[in-house]
């Protein structure tokens, strides 16, 4: 029996990766998002709605061409780490390395710094968009996958959680998700992406909802029952009439992604996290 092999990743490499991710995620919309918006523009019933979708597409092309952020709200840096258990970070503190990358990326990329250090009394801007919000999963292997999902305030504020009883069932979940989108109306910059987390507990359901947002847009949950629920929710949401920017139309959501986790026999937590049409996120694997 030898010692377990570990792969060394210098902290500086993580900082460099974060810097690149910040700039790229804010300026370059994933290709699948653009295709999805184009597809919905072709079926949008409202003329103003189609016009708005065309403006959105033009905005995203302009942002990529000129490397400007697609939206001025370049958000809080939400970071998902999938860290191989055989990875060792050398030459610095992991969180500090990530925050240094955020600091550099937001400065170099002319991205907006939107973090205040304390929420209630002074609300002073930290001026460098740190700290990032970091979620870490330890996984098998010797790689480090970093996903950055900058999250703006407008859509984030339209999120919600409900601690339901198991008897509420699928119908309860469906109603909660649809009501949440209806209440949000024009605020989260529709067409939106709807992230739903079902199960787990009070703190994990919202995390599942957020993870649902970083799935490739329009991808399906591998569980057919949940995939069917995603389709059904998307159809129902697009019947609400909210439309692009809430001005009325048939394209309210571009996708609904549902993630689930085991939960207590007494519980049925449901969380909804919304993303705007920009829905920025990008990954790098080291």
């Amino acid at each position, binding site marked *: 029996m030898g010692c377990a092999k570990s792969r060394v990743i210098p902290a500086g490499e993580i900082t460099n990766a974060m810097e690149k991710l910040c700039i790229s995620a804010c300026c370059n919309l994933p290709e699948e998002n653009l295709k999805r918006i184009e597809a919905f523009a072709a079926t949008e*019933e*409202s003329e*103003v709605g189609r016009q*708005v979708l065309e*403006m*959105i597409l*033009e*905005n995203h092309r*302009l*942002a990529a061409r*000129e490397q*400007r*952020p*697609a*939206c*001025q*709200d*370049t958000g809080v840096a939400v970071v998902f780490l999938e860290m191989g258990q055989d990875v060792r970070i050398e030459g610095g503190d992991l969180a500090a390395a990530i925050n240094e990358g955020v600091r550099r990326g937001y400065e170099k990329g*002319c*991205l*907006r*710094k*939107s973090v205040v250090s304390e929420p209630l009394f002074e*609300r002073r*801007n930290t*001026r460098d968009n740190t700290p990032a919000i970091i979620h870490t999963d330890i996984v098998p292997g010797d790689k480090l996958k970093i996903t950055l999902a900058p999250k703006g*305030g*407008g859509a984030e*504020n339209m999120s919600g959680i409900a601690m339901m009883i198991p008897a509420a069932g699928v119908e309860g979940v469906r109603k909660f998700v649809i009501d949440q989108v209806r209440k949000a*109306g*024009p*605020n989260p*910059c529709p067409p939106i992406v709807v992230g739903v987390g079902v199960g787990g507990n009070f703190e994990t359901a919202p995390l599942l909802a957020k993870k649902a947002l970083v799935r490739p847009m329009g991808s399906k949950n591998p569980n057919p029952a949940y995939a069917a629920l995603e389709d059904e929710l998307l159809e*129902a949401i697009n*019947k*609400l*009439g*909210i*439309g692009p*920017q*809430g*001005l*009325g*139309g*048939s394209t309210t959501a571009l996708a609904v992604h549902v993630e689930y986790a085991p939960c207590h026999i007494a519980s049925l937590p449901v969380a909804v996290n919304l993303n*705007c*049409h*920009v829905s920025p996120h990008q990954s790098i694997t080291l």
Partner: protein
Amino acid sequence: MAKRITTPLDEETVARLKAGDQVLLSGVVYTARDAAHKRLIALIEEGKELPIDLQGQVIYYVGPAPAKPGNPIGSAGPTTSGRMDPYAPTLMEHGMKGMIGKGMRSKDVRDAMIQHRAVYFAAVGGAGALAAKRIKSAEVVAYEDLGPEAIRKLYVEDLPLFVINDIYGDDLYEQGVAKYRKD
């Protein structure tokens, strides 16, 4: 066809704008969002002078991204207007005639718009790079310490907007949704 209008807004312009109109707005607009509004209202409550004259003015709810070299401003799309609802009626009382943002307004704000004859416009949320192209100059005129929330004086040309709420009590969000709702 979009209606071309210029700031400051006069009574006649405000009176001919209707919910659902598309507008191309040109002229000076001032930026202000959460923290700047809080400070403006505090000044009004203390009876002090405001750093900007609100008569006929339009406030754009935006916290722009920093400008890249050679550009007057970075990406600059609208932020959610509802957060400014607690402050907006007081600013209308002090002369503000227009607001640009995105998302719903409270009943109090809509009532104040009828009373003080002011209009609420929506710009396309998220399309910040596109909006920045219509902003020809920008300078910070108050509260520099607030960073993206500072008050800026912008000069805009043909900024594309939708009239959401007019002085007659109509609301494009309600009307648009009612038209396409199928559930």
